[in-house]
């Protein structure tokens, strides 16, 4: 069966009102071709996105491993922190990704429930940091984390978690 095509490649009789059985068969075939083509394109896009995501996160993991090996209070460590900050701020400002849907409608007490742990954490940090001076007997969170972050794999994992968290915040 030969379907007549317009110069733009579309079926001349591609309309819902086309009447003859041949027109309907041509229309159905065109719809099938369009669906298959768009499906293949979507699949290819998904594969390309997946490859891209794997490449980017692999690079981020390598970066985190390198950054995790740098000592604090060095210029290299400062650059290693500033780099992801600049990249993610740049993405947020100049090329923002599609943002996740706005939060669901939840009652006020739902939001207030989060104030308990957040204010508890802030209070503990303020008391131990400013009142007790963050001594070993009254450590702040960062003092407690110092021995953990001295171990290279843990520090690298923390850097990667920090980068992932930054990316998730950019998407919010």
């Amino acid at each position, binding site marked *: 069966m030969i379907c007549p095509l317009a110069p733009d490649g579309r079926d001349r009789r591609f309309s819902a009102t086309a009447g003859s059985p041949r027109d309907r068969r041509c229309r159905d075939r065109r719809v099938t071709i369009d669906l298959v083509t768009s499906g293949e394109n979507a699949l290819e896009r998904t594969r390309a996105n997946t490859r891209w995501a794997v490449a980017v996160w692999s690079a981020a993991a390598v970066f985190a491993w390198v950054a995790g090996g740098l000592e604090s209070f060095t210029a290299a460590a400062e650059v*290693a922190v500033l780099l992801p900050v600049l990249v993610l701020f740049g993405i947020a400002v100049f090329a923002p990704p599609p943002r996740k849907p*706005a939060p669901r409608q939840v009652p006020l007490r739902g939001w207030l429930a989060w104030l308990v742990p957040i204010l508890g954490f802030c209070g503990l940090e303020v008391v131990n940091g400013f009142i007790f001076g963050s001594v070993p*007997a009254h450590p702040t969170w960062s003092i407690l984390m110092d021995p953990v972050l001295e171990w290279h794999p843990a520090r690298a994992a923390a850097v990667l978690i920090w980068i992932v968290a930054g990316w998730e915040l950019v998407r919010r």
Partner: protein
Amino acid sequence: MSSRAFTILLFGLIAAGILTLDLLARRPESKLPTFGEVFGFLSQRRVGRVLVLGFWGWSGWHFFAR
């Protein structure tokens, strides 16, 4: 119990509280927002977004550079 152990216990309780709230928020028909939705809520306005991202940047600086 020493003051250090007590402080660690409090931090542990806070972490457990955050984890519990987030798990509760993920149940169907939950009236609680998830931890991510809290930051989404804060990021709805430009100033909130700047503050949230600024806090993230500062935390990296604090833990890994200083």
